[in-house]
């Protein structure tokens, strides 16, 4: 099953209180691409990502994951394919222990106990949090929570990885580990972040969102190096590109 394609067409969304968060967003991400979603605070990045596994339902427009249009009936299947790391790890961790939390996804997928154990342990090791397995998640430090939240998604072996600011609160070592991990993940990835250095290292393509609209889209290095574009949308040229000529 190829779920690796993600297509969004003319997406509109207003929150119940009337805030227009998305005002017509369209893009297409093909198999194996690694795409960054950047933009100022409140641009609508999180809102957009929450649509990708059916958490929010568009006011208008449509979403396709692979061949499947994302509607209520297909949401469950799509959720199995799309692994989502939320911006706030507190939302993601809800079981009494780290182990149970990471095991929750595989357990619901009906995997045998051995396989579950194996997946959990390896996911925790990959984010460097194996020593926390019996701790309750709500008693962890912010960065530890973030790392565990990433592990919960890794353990589900998703086809598409959607991450909302995965590097926030991680210490530099954890951030480095995350970058390596994402580099080794060969499937489609969509990452919303303000960490433009991470974008430079990881993403081939960048989508710039502002006020609920796509305002620019293209090659990562090229766009991020465009000082006027960056400044116009609450961003900055990353340090690591400063030795290049401005675009």
């Amino acid at each position: 099953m190829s779920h690796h394609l993600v297509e969004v067409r003319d997406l509109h969304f207003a929150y119940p209180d009337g805030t227009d968060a998305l005002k017509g967003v369209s893009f297409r991400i093909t198999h194996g691409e690694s795409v960054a979603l950047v933009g100022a605070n409140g641009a609508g990045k999180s809102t957009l990502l929450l649509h990708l596994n059916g958490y929010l339902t568009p006011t208008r427009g449509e979403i396709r994951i692979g061949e499947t249009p994302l509607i209520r009936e297909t949401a469950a299947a799509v959720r199995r394919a799309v692994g989502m790391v939320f911006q706030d790890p507190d939302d993601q961790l809800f079981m009494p222990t780290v182990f149970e939390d990471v095991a929750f996804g595989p357990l619901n997928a009906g995997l045998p106990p051995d396989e579950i154990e194996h997946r959990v342990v390896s996911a925790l090791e990959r984010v460097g949090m194996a020593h926390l397995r019996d701790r309750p998640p709500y008693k962890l430090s912010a960065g530890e929570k973030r790392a565990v939240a990433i592990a919960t998604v890794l353990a589900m072996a998703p086809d598409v990885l959607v991450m909302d600011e995965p590097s926030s609160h991680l210490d530099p070592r954890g951030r480095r580990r995350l970058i390596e991990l994402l580099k080794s993940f060969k499937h489609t990835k969509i990452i919303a972040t303000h960490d433009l250095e991470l974008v430079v290292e990881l993403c081939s393509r960048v989508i710039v969102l502002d006020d609920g609209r796509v305002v620019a889209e293209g090659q990562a290095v090229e766009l991020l190096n465009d000082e006027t574009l960056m400044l116009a949308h609450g961003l900055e040229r990353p340090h690591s590109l400063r030795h290049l000529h401005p675009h």
Partner: protein
Amino acid sequence: MGLGQWLEIGRMDELGRLDTPAHRLDARAKVITTIVFIVVVMSFPRYEVSALTPFFLYPFALIALGRIPPGYILRKILLAAPFALVVGMFNPLLDHQVIASVGVWSISGGWLSFASIMLRFVLTVSAALTLIACTGIYRLGAGLERMCMPRVFVVQLLFLYRYLFVIVDEGARMMRSLELRSARPSSLRLRVYGSLVGHLLLRSMARADRVYRAMAARGFDGKIRALHRASFQWTDWAFTGGWTAFFAIARMWNLADALGRILAGGGS
């Protein structure tokens, strides 16, 4: 209710996750035994006191087997005790009939039934508490579901339990920042509290929604799956059967009195 008490639920959660012989028993075995225990204890006549004492064996055994700190259970019993005290308080006042005497003292029925109420209270409450401490809410939920409890209800039970932490957490966060930014906490007006409570409700609703979606995102479909699928084994049968037999015996014969008679009788 203080934060301390809320934190105690967290403690219960930790106890429920221990791995001891008591915890390894099937949840259903413990639930059934506990119910039998409570029904038997409550079926004693109102003035019964001594015959109740052998029943302490059950909670004590579970506490020991489950490595539950007895002090913890005791504290929780004491917390609920004022309630039972108030219940029984009226009996000695209203019932003066002398129905027993020890030496020169005569004991009124009211005092006896009061003592009996307190004993039953301690017994039933400690049985319920140890049941949870030795099982944990998840295993209990999975067990209840397999005892034909409707799944919607069991899920509701688990969600309620989980969201208690969410609300406590949200509430604690609000109180913390409130406290830190108010120079004179006592000066807070009722209006502020009113709006805080409303806000807490909205925040918790929003958070509950997000947590649920996160669960759905990881394949939750309303079915509770336990990590360690227990099946009803011979130990569970033995547990349930053994205790039920003991309860029946202790219900029919006053073991304590018999014991006392032998000892006292032998002594006098």
